[in-house]
């Protein structure tokens, strides 16, 4: 550390990247350019945000900075860490830099920790790789760092294995592992995206605190401008592997580039515009969907163990969904939202209670359709777009094959997909397009109720907005009722008539969306507070 300090005093830069260029050799021999002439620099204890939509080359940048690119990638460019030229380091020199001066935490903390090694060992291995400490001293330092990242009982965590920790805890453990050798630079690659909002806020807080305490330089990669804005001094916006804009937040905010703007703001106007088109729910009619006293308990049995674990996923949950209405269900992950919708969609059989569609037990399963969070998993990769959309028709044996294809093409057009894309595979569509495809296909089944299970949360802000608009359109045109599952409260006011808050398998609060922020229910208040924290800057801008 001292030597790097000396060097950095000369060059005065913690990280300098010049002309980074990365190409991947694809399976068919073609070369795909993932990063094109990206340059930036970072001073000690500064933090730089990298903002961009998915596929813009952010993660490639992180890997390139760590020199961890896969073998089919070719890299050119210059990376200097504290004045040392990273690409020219030998593998043993590189080993000494990694973890000691330069550390990485990545997107999915669950995948970043070795599942079969204890947390303590994983952290102390890093420590021992870089300094010759005794076992006892090592354990002490591990304890210390675990405490620093906010664990109350570090000794217990040291003995624990990754699967015993929650998502936030895992991310904190990963952070402890990255920081145990006191690196001067931390590269954080979408550290929040797989966490629920409450945890996101906690981790973000922690990062802010550590940055100050440890004098950490940080490269923070995210697609979420509002989260970035709470932690970064400067920002670099990426688009298709290239720098689209860079500078301070002020400069970015005033950018005239549509792309750059789209990443930061939702044009609330268009949404409210759409919401005005929303047809009012028929309140006095019979509910289209009624869920009565649903209960579901999972029993987990451990291999080699006699004990059973009961997880009460749902306890006595009742929901009424009126025709043309939208009910939102919010709650932390694990609160039972998913189980509820899976029971409604018929993928799970509840222990108790019943699901009624227009007053009768669900007869035709296709009347309730579900849009999954990650649409790529909901579309068979072997099917072409038109096959996907026509599948419900094929199953229902509706019309001739030709008619089915025509109907499918029409539906594609309706959700905003070009008809000429009909022979593409799902993988060839972008995230937003896939979500549209999933919608088209759900519509093909002529459903009455559409369940939107976190259907927006995987998408960039601008895309979220577009899909939302589409949803509102369809709502009116197809006489749909929505059951909307989310942990993000931003869009709720424009969309839902009622919000149900779930915690630990129960519905703890039923409230109108505009009264969310004034609710007295602790669970609701936690959710609203966290949302506010995360999107503070966003809110600022919005106002």
């Amino acid at each position, binding site marked *: 550390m001292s030597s790097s300090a000396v060097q950095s005093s000369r060059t005065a830069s913690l990280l300098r990247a010049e002309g980074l260029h990365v190409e991947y050799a694809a399976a068919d021999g073609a070369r795909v350019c993932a990063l094109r002439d990206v340059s930036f620099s970072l001073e000690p204890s500064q933090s730089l945000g990298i903002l961009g939509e998915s596929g813009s080359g952010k993660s490639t940048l992180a890997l390139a900075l*760590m020199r*961890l690119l896969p*073998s089919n990638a070719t890299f050119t460019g210059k990376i200097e860490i504290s004045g040392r030229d990273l690409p020219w380091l030998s593998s043993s020199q*590189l*080993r*000494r*830099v*990694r*973890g*000691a001066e330069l*550390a*990485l*935490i*990545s*997107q*999915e903390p669950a*995948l*970043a*920790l*070795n*599942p*079969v*090694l*204890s947390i303590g060992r*994983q952290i102390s*291995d*890093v420590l021992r*790789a*870089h300094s010759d400490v005794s076992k006892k001293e090592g354990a002490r330092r591990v304890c210390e760092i675990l405490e620093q990242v906010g664990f109350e009982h570090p000794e217990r965590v040291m003995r*624990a*294995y990754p*699967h*015993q920790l929650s998502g936030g805890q895992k991310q904190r453990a*990963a952070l402890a*592992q*990255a920081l145990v*050798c006191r690196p001067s630079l931390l590269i954080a690659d979408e550290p929040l995206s797989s966490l629920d909002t409450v945890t996101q806020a906690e981790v973000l807080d922690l990062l802010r605190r550590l940055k100050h305490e440890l004098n950490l330089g940080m490269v923070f990669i995210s697609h979420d401008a509002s989260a970035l804005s709470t932690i970064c001094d400067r920002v670099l916006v990426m688009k298709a592997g290239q720098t689209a804009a860079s500078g301070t937040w002020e400069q970015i905010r005033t950018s005239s580039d549509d792309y750059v703007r789209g990443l930061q703001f939702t044009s609330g106007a268009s949404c409210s515009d759409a919401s005005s088109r929303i047809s009012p729910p028929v309140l006095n009619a019979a509910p289209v969907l009624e869920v009565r006293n649903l209960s579901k308990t999972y029993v987990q049995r*451990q*291999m*080699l*163990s*006699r*004990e059973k*674990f009961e997880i009460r996923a749902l306890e006595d949950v009742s929901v009424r969904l009126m025709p043309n209405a939208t009910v939102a269900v919010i709650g932390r992950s694990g609160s039972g939202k998913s189980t509820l919708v899976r029971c409604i969609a018929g993928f799970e059989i509840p222990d108790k209670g019943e699901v009624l569609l227009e007053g009768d037990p669900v007869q035709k399963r296709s009347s309730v359709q579900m849009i999954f969070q990650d649409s790529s998993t909901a579309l068979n990769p072997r099917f072409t777009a038109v096959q996907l959309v026509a599948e419900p028709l094929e199953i229902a044996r509706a019309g001739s094959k030709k008619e089915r294809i025509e109907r499918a093409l029409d539906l594609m057009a309706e959700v905003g997909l070009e008809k000429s894309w009909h022979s593409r595979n799902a993988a060839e569509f972008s995230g937003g397009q896939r979500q549209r495809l999933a919608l088209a296909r759900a519509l093909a089944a002529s459903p009455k109720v559409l369940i939107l299970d976190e259907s927006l949360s995987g998408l960039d802000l601008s895309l979220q907005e577009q899909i939302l608009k589409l949803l509102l359109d369809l709502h009116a045109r197809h006489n749909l009722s929505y059951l909307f599952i989310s942990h993000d409260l931003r869009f709720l006011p424009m969309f839902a008539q009622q919000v149900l808050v779930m915690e630990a398998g129960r519905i703890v609060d039923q409230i109108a969306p505009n009264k969310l922020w004034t609710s007295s229910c602790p669970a609701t208040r936690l959710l609203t507070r966290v949302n506010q924290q995360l999107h503070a800057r966003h809110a600022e801008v919005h106002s």
Partner: protein
Amino acid sequence: MIRYLSRRLAHGVLLLAGVSMLLFVFQKAAPGDFFLGMRLNPELSGQTLQGLRAEYGLDQPLPQRYARWLGSALRGDLGPSFAYNLPVTTLLWPRIKNTLLLSVPALLISWLIAIPLGLLAAWRRTGWIDRIFSGSTSTLLALPDVLLALLAVLLALRTHIFPVGGMTAGTDAGESTAGLLQHMVLPVFVLVVGSVGPLLRQVRASAIEVMDSSYFRAAQGNGLGRTTLLFRHALPAAANPLISLFGLSAGFLLSASILVEVIMSWPGMGPLMLEAIFGRDLFVVIGAVMISTLLLVLGNLLADVLLYFCDPRIRVQS
């Protein structure tokens, strides 16, 4: 744990029963019985053979014979060998010992070779090292055991460095460990060469899976040394399928070396089994398969226990 183990054991018992029943049926389906082989001896009359058949109960209907065998098997008596006039258990035991003497070291050596080499191959996954690796493992797999054993015999015959077969020198009484080791070298070598190919591929494949994972990349990103990475991080994480494979291989401890034993005249299960199968020495075959199956069951159980200790996801309650 006890409940789990007992469930597995119950499966094992079911398996044993199924296997034994099937063998009885197969045996019935294969024409000729043990005593048929004596009929071409002009000195023996058909009557005598009929008498012998009756003595061993071969003239009774199949279900009855099975029931009788099952009854005695439950008491630990796997029936008599027609050829040896001995209880099968007495007959099998020394040969099982001899076979294990070959197959256990071969198994261990194969794993000891396969693990570091497989990890290394996964680590250096591109370029000529990988090409040599996959080419040579394919070649290893392609060489029939028969050819390997014959080549080993040829080698011994030409060089006189190693004995050409057997377990002890003809004049040895069989007590000398050095002599035994000398006789073990070639057959164990052949077995190792014959079995290391698939293991290497399996280790490499499992290790690659781990090395492609983000936690491995993260560990690399934290600057861990190569040995630590490979043996402390990759190996335990890649162990699951390997442990299952290891457990499975227990079932083949008695049968993997049959051909090698026959060609190199090792006094193990191989020659006995072949003789018994072709000679329709029913209870010997059933006994041997039963013990093999038992090893399979125990091997799987062992694998489960090993998994329990190696994989915290199974061990520790969440």
